[in-house]
């Protein structure tokens, strides 16, 4: 009997039309938990570095987290892992919602998809019955539309359907996979799905999920529930300069009207202009009205009491559901307002594109046009109105029509194709991936390391529990740490208490910075293996889930013995394995840098020192490659063996 997980993966070969239910090795759960952890192991074992993203040999893995579907609150994430067309590296894009638990109730921990179907198909999984069905009639349909059509066709309104839209079908490098209000959006996982000829996956599960030691497990769940209740009623008192939104659990963009922090701190347009005086009384009122008109209800993901999503109904647009930050990304890229933001997301979501990258790519094109690098010849019929331009570009991109075909590969590859100096306009990438449009003054050593080395390539999925700024007075900082039970050790409290405002870049010291970054990163990797949402865990301040209660929950849920040291080591193992997949694909130190203009004040020597120390701290050599000693310590001997054989590691640079 397996607990919390099912012990089975579904293997789908779309080339041959073959379906297999395969038992998994319980030893892998002990070493890698599940979710991202076990998916990284599969990608390491089965996708060698020569395999191109759009190759039948690339795998597309939909995975539940280890705790998904159990009563563990907010454990509802589906982790989609594959080799990304955008970065050519391993990517793992995640979504909340209702897909993961449904898959587990159907009796599977993962769906592993290989090959390519000659015709567009969709997958129908209803417990033990699995069918590959024709999807010819769904070609070109929107993501929400497809979900509805499939549910009707299957006569099962409770089926959860993950679908791609036109963008995925046309292999856009930032195409998403959409499921209800949720989406796995980053780095083109939808494009890989489209390349495989897979329009959608529908799942319906009616089986039980078992818990190893129920009373103990429920005790922890109830503690978490009570703490969530407390935090929902009493937000945290934040240091000045930190956004109000971080005082709460979840990412409450649909509930909050106050957007002063985002609109004045983030850059508008092609990540260029800060508008420090934007948040006037007049704008505040207009934005509040827009949001109240559009959001008819706050909605949540499976078994999560926090409401990060919104039901959106707007005049002139189809109803849809929105989450998180996409209301602002289009608005700010187009220098427009919230009405526009809500409206264009309705269309973009049907096409199935990433709400972070897409607006930036379009703002990049507008800027190139205005500066004469792209001309009327490249973009015949390009409208003059700003909002019209965004709709026009969106329509071209998802169809790969004209200039859209170039822009569909993201700013990094598009700039190379356009030439004529366009590369200077693709200024906001890390590892070929569009970043949030933030342009700041003084180098922040903590964020420097997270940006540079994060394999998620997305800051919101790396940052989290350590405040972004200190309280002005020491007394306030001492007050803050009083109930800071989430820290792994007392040193982290000290680093915070001793943190005087405006001491970047030399505070925290590189050694302290390493520890702060490591803590934040490890908690994210634990979330992604267990399927717990970061918005009640690693992404937020003083979260309900932390290193001290996770071991008990995992142990009582699965029956696998667990303590803090062991869990920390597992998180390191997963993180190192992801890095190993990527260094085998050629990623090196030179790739680990934030956008050049991210901070005005840069310190090359300090930055080099930070990287040196962090690599050493992580057990990596000077190129960012995990050393043999460290790999062997983590029971990743098969990795060091392979890296040595390939010459990625050599014995002489491998000294720890």
């Amino acid at each position, binding site marked *: 009997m397996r607990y919390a997980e099912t012990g089975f993966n579904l293997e789908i070969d779309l080339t041959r039309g073959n379906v297999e239910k395969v038992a998994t090795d319980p030893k892998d759960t002990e070493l890698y938990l599940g979710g991202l952890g076990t998916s990284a192991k599969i990608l390491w074992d089965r996708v060698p570095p020569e395999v191109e993203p759009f190759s039948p040999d690339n795998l597309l893995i939909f995975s539940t987290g280890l705790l998904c*579907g*159990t*009563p563990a*609150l907010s454990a509802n994430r589906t982790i989609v892992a594959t080799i990304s067309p955008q970065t050519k590296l391993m990517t793992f894009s995640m979504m909340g919602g*209702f897909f993961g638990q449904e898959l587990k*109730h159907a009796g599977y921990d993962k769906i592993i998809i290989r090959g390519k179907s000659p015709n567009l198909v969709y997958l129908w999984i209803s417990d033990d019955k699995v069918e590959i069905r024709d999807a010819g009639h769904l070609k070109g349909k929107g993501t*929400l539309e497809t979900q*509805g059509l499939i549910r009707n066709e299957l006569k099962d*309104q409770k089926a959860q359907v993950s679908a791609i839209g036109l963008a995925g079908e046309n292999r856009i490098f930032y195409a998403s996979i959409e499921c*209800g*209000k949720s989406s796995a959006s980053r780095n083109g996982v939808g494009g890989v799905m489209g390349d495989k000829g897979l329009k959608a996956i529908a799942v319906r599960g*009616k*089986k*039980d*999920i*078992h*818990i190893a030691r*129920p*009373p103990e*497990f*429920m005790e922890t769940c109830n503690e978490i*529930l009570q703490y*969530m*209740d407390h935090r*929902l009623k009493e937000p945290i008192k934040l240091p000045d300069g930190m956004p109000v939104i971080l005082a709460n659990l979840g990412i409450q963009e649909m509930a909050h009207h106050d957007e002063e922090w985002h609109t004045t701190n983030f850059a508008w347009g092609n990540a260029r202009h800060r508008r420090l005086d934007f948040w006037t009384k007049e704008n505040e009122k207009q934005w509040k009205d827009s949001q109240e008109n559009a959001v*008819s*209800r*706050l*909605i*949540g*993901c*499976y*078994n*999560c*009491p926090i*409401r990060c999503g919104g*039901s959106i*109904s707007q005049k002139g647009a*189809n*109803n*849809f*559901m929105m989450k998180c930050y996409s209301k602002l990304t289009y608005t700010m890229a187009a220098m427009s307002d919230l009405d526009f933001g809500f409206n264009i997301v309705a269309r973009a979501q049907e096409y199935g594109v990433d709400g972070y990258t897409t607006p930036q790519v379009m703002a990049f094109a507008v800027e190139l046009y205005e500066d004469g690098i792209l001309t009327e010849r490249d973009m015949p019929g390009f409208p003059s109105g700003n909002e019209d331009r965004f709709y026009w570009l969106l329509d071209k991109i998802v169809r790969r029509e004209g200039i859209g075909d170039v822009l569909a590969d993201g700013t990094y590859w598009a700039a190379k194709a356009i030439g004529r100096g366009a590369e200077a306009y693709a200024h906001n990438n890390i590892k070929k991936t569009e970043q949030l449009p933030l342009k700041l003054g003084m180098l922040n050593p903590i964020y420097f390391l997270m940006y540079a080395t994060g394999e998620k390539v997305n800051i919101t999925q790396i940052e989290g529990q350590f405040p972004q700024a200190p309280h002005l007075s020491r007394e306030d900082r001492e007050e803050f740490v009083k109930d800071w039970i989430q820290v792994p050790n007392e040193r982290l409290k000290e680093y915070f208490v001793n943190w005087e405002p405006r001491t970047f870049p030399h505070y925290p010291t590189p050694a302290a910075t390493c520890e702060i970054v490591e803590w934040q990163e490890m908690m994210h990797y634990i979330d992604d293996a267990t399927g717990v949402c970061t918005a009640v865990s690693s992404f937020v301040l003083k979260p309900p889930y932390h290193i001290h209660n996770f071991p008990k929950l995992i142990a009582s849920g699965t029956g696998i013995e667990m303590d803090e040291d062991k869990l920390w080591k597992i998180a390191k193992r997963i993180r190192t394995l992801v890095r190993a997949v990527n260094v085998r694909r050629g990623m090196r130190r030179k790739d680990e840098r934030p956008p050049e203009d991210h901070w005005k004040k840069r310190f090359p020597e300090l930055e080099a020192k930070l990287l040196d120390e962090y690599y050493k701290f992580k057990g990596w050599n000077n190129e960012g490659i995990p050393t043999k000693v460290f790999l062997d310590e983590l029971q990743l001997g098969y990795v060091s063996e392979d890296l040595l054989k390939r010459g990625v590691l050599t014995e002489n640079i491998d000294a720890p």
Partner: protein
Amino acid sequence: MKGEKKKKIIKIIKVDVDKCSGCRACEVICSAFHAAPEYSSNNPERSRIRVIHEPIKDVYIPVYAGEYTPAECAGRGQYTIDGKDYDECAFCRASCPSRDLFKEPDSGLPLKCDMCESDPPLEAPLCVQWCLPDALTYEEREEEVEEEVVLEEMEIGLEALAEKYGLQKIADGIARMSKND
């Protein structure tokens, strides 16, 4: 079956559909509590409360299981409230032949909310305790009612089987099963 007038505590789960976020925590905790042994497994299919939802229409209705009924309704109602259409049966709590709600997935036997009967009694049913958005709240009220004989859970199940197969078949079945033992 008529009895005397008697004071009775009426237990009420109040449902505010406007506050429902559609998270289905109620389904999770209900099915976990009613698992045997308690909390050893969970499965919304076995839950005695379900959230009927159509997200695109912004419809979310938590419905907890009421009585079993052997027959379908003669007609179907449909409601429009605040401009939103609610499908037939949306607010109905019955386990009935016209839909797959509130049926034990293995046996097909009807499920019914027991307000998380427990010894000692819980403060409130668990679906209410786990609903932090407060779409579900709990109230008790005293009422004078005529006493009636309350059927045990097994009897409810048997009654449903009898409706489906007839008493004779069930009696035969039980006789056969006891022989095999």
